[in-house]
């Protein structure tokens, strides 16, 4: 049963990721990205990280994909009129992807599993404890980065009076 669930989610993730790349319409690509996220959240649940799956769906499906859809519809780009890509680059893509998978597979085989402390249960309490003790400095840096990103977006999207006058 769990086997079937795993393969379903893996196929969903990979198939819709491929659809993101191959789709001509950007709106369809964004919706396929959403589907891929759902598959990935299922894989996270299988890996005993249900909290991360919820956060992934909240942040990505709720915020990122919605933002993408807003921007795509705001810019109103015409779909089609461009070919997906040529035969040579497609062949190179398949070859390079196969090489990458073989390499990563080797790494996965050569990594010894289950050698850590056995007490690390992925509960919200344990996550919070790690975030506010071991990783306190990264948390603060990330918060500061979010602030900088917000300021950057405001500066980028604001129309300044001087540049308007210069035109």
């Amino acid at each position, binding site marked *: 049963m769990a086997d079937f669930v795993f393969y379903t989610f893996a196929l969903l993730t*990979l198939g819709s990721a491929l659809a993101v*790349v191959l789709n001509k319409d950007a709106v369809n*690509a964004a919706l396929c990205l959403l589907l891929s996220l759902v598959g990935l959240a299922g894989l996270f649940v299988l890996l005993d990280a249900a909290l991360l799956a919820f956060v992934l769906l909240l942040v990505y499906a709720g915020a990122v994909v919605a*933002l993408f859809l807003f921007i795509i519809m705001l810019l109103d780009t015409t779909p089609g009129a*461009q070919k997906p890509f040529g035969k040579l680059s497609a062949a190179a893509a398949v070859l390079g992807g196969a090489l990458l998978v073989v390499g*990563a597979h080797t790494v*996965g085989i050569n990594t010894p599993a289950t050698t850590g*402390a056995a007490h690390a249960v992925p509960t919200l309490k344990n996550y919070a404890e*790690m975030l506010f003790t071991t990783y306190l400095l990264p948390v603060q840096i990330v918060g500061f980065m979010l602030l900088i990103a917000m300021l950057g*977006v405001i500066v980028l999207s604001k129309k300044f009076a001087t540049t308007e006058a210069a035109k």
Partner: protein
Amino acid sequence: MNPAGLETYIALSALLFAIGFFGVLLRKNTLVIYMCLELMLLASTLALVAFSKFQRTLDGAVFVFFILTIAAAEVAVGLAIIVALFRKRHSVHVDDLNLLKH
């Protein structure tokens, strides 16, 4: 509970990363390129969660929080840049954004 081993998850993550990578290389639409960038980030989170689970530590899963935060900030800034470029050039095609080439 877990049907697949670590190497299966790593291979899956590598495949997802490869798909995103070649999407970035091959596609011409800037917005789709950003989506493929997101796919690559997601592949790395899958690898982190898998390693974290099979090593029985929580560090990998905690890193996923940071990746999600950075990805959200990156998307906001990137889309703002795309909108600014679109205002100037009226296109999101990378072939039209070749000012530095000339």
